[in-house]
């Protein structure tokens, strides 16, 4: 009997430690695929102490989604500070101008986690004769439907939007750059100066 309690205590303790770690961890996504652990660590080291960085492998989501990582901070305060700051002002890591998003981590985001203590898993087979079979089957169908909905939303909507925005910004940026180039060119080859002299406008180099 006591053995069991000991074991329960041990697993509860482990779970508590794990949960504490979860609280200290920040989930960051919208990371460029070029971002590595070192980059991220260096980026955040300016503000907080980073204990651990784990990238979340992408098994089931479409390939074009940006990377995500779980960053474990030293203290709880640091974690919440980072999240608050990133919410206020955009933080860029290697992927501009797309800012990195940060939120608190959740237990399910972690890969290797201890079992929740005191949890019992039960299972039951339902045969077609069972009255609930129909309902269960419907739930299964619903699950698949939801999955495809999610997939659709991800692929079509989310990524499309992102792509649109990126393209749009690229266009704007190009346009800006052209303008600047133009002005730069004019200034540098003295055309502006000549024109200024002609029109008798004082041209000051600001």
């Amino acid at each position, binding site marked *: 009997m006591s053995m069991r309690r000991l074991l329960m205590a041990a697993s509860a303790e482990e779970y508590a430690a794990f949960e504490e770690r979860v609280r200290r961890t920040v989930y960051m996504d919208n990371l460029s695929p070029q971002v590595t652990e070192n980059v991220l660590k260096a980026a955040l080291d300016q503000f907080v102490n980073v204990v651990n960085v784990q990238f979340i492998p992408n*098994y*089931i989501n479409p390939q074009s989604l940006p990377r995500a990582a779980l960053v474990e901070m030293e203290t709880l305060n640091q974690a919440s500070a980072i999240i608050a700051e990133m919410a206020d002002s955009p933080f860029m890591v290697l992927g501009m101008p797309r800012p990195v998003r940060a939120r608190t981590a959740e237990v399910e985001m972690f*890969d290797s986690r201890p079992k929740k203590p005191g*949890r019992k*898993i039960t*299972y039951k*087979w339902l045969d077609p004769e069972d*009255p609930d079979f129909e309902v269960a089957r419907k*739930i299964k169908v619903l699950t698949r439907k939801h999955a495809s909905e999610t997939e659709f939303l991800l692929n079509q909507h989310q990524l499309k939007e992102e792509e649109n925005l990126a393209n749009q910004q690229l266009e704007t940026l190009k346009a800006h*750059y052209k303008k600047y180039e133009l002005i730069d060119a004019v200034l540098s080859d003295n055309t502006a100066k000549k024109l200024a002299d002609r029109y008798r406008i004082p041209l000051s180099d600001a």
Partner: protein
Amino acid sequence: MPNFLELKEEEALEFSWGHKRCLGGTYNGVQFYDSFTYDGINYSLYDCVYMWADDQREPYIGKLVKIWETASHKKKVKVVWFFRPIEIAHWLGDIKPLKTEIFLATGEGKGLFNLNPLEAISGKCKVVCVSKDPRNAQPTEDDLRNADYIFYRTFDVGSCKVSTAFADQVAGIEVKHYFNSRKVQKSILDTENVANFPVKDGTPARVKTKFSDTSASTDVPEIQAQKRRKVEGSLGYKEKLDVKDPFGKNISMSKGVNINDKASKDPHQLGQNKGMKSDSQVMEVTSRLDTDSSKWFKIQSWDDRMNAAHEKGTLVLFENLDPSYTSTEVEDIVFHVFNQQVSAKMIQHSPFSRPNYGQAFVIFKTRDAADVVISQLKRRCLMLGDRRPVVGRRAKPTDPRNPPKFFGHISIPKLRLQKQHEDMRNAVSTPHYSQSNTVEFDMAMEWCSLYGRSKLWWETLHQEQAKETEALRNEIKIHHPNEQGYLVFPLSFYNFLLLKGQLLPFPGSIYQILIAMHLSGSCIAVALMTRALNVAGRFVSATVYREAYMGVPFFCTVYEVTPTHRVGHIVQALGSKVIYKCLEDVPIFGHVDGAASMHIISSKYT
């Protein structure tokens, strides 16, 4: 050969019988055995063993040709000797023996064999016969490498002569038992790192019993790291296993030890590398541990295994799981339900994942196994926990090798081509907070608003979906006011034997029958499922059976319980024992793989 003195043992070493052979006819009460386990090592008939005598520096090498227990419970073995060269140096003459060569004793006379107490055995020995006799199966390269000793010559104790010929019988045992057997090479690749499963060996002569002190911990890693006498701590390797058939003589076995999956990691994987598979047949360990390092294989990472499995068709995606499950739990579940060892990994949540919805990739051993499981999941509904039917399907994991596209990193193409100043480049690429007076900031703001919008639409979707699922789930609840189900116990936690269909009828109306059993000699302290099941019972009657099931003796006590009393009391009275529970109409089922490993525990409870 001097007779052995009764070795005084400082401590009582573990012992248990293996498979029974037959009863001695002429001597009453004598029971012959095929195998036994002593001090954690499994010995079988026709094994070669070391035997120490008090006055010798080196142990004697002998072959077990008879194993029995007398009526007075004395354990004895008949051992046919092998001679070391120095022992017969006087008669060797010009013959130069090989380095690890020993000589089999033949003929008639003193020194051929001895009847000794079993306790004199001090270890197992690998002896390979390299004789060119047609009856002898030629050993393989590996056998020779693994062998402790070889022999191909005999020494006749009567005539004191060495010869290479083998008579038909040696010491009354047919000579084929002395030769190598045609061995079955089995290489075991995958194992569960959750529990230790011995090989389900069809041959009756070989029973592997595993004694584990697993009671110390629930955690998988600790169980794997059991201290066995001759095991060095070794992690992660695949061993070839030679299964001996009943008439085999040699056991050129390599050892397999469960690895601590938390210890060795694939560095780029997150924390737990669930892909760790090792030989879970905890075989008896030979002393030649260190030389096996050449056989150690690298355990592949989960990624590789997953992709490989997908190609083979053994990868299945389980959906609609409780998101808080861990990968080990998924493995347990699959094992309980389908009785298959698998390796699983829960997919980690992302902001796009649905709340209350978990997925896991499961790698099965064979394609057929995966097919069976999928079809079963389709035909019938497997309900997990609270009304979650599990959906299983084949799904392709996203290929990480495809170059990902990342939207949002924009740079002026022209500038890229131009040579930029070192600091400019640095300034551009260091991570930084965007300043509010830059173009960058504006764009960043646009992205932020996109994030906000995306968050909103995901939330709406999830809400809608949650509503729909709830509606359906509630329907189920109506039908089953009292939750019934089978309990899934973590494999790593419990170790016990199952009786096959030994449900004993009791008179009167029985609600539940408890069967408690424990292994003689090693009571396994196990958590009490009664507590977990919240079952109450009344101790009505108990019958004690001393059975030897599959050669392992155990006690079986049967209690009748009714829901009025706390079984906890009964259990306490018994000490710590393993408790099973079954319904009268559901016979305790399961199968025994000859070892104290749990397979299916099934119980209905209310």
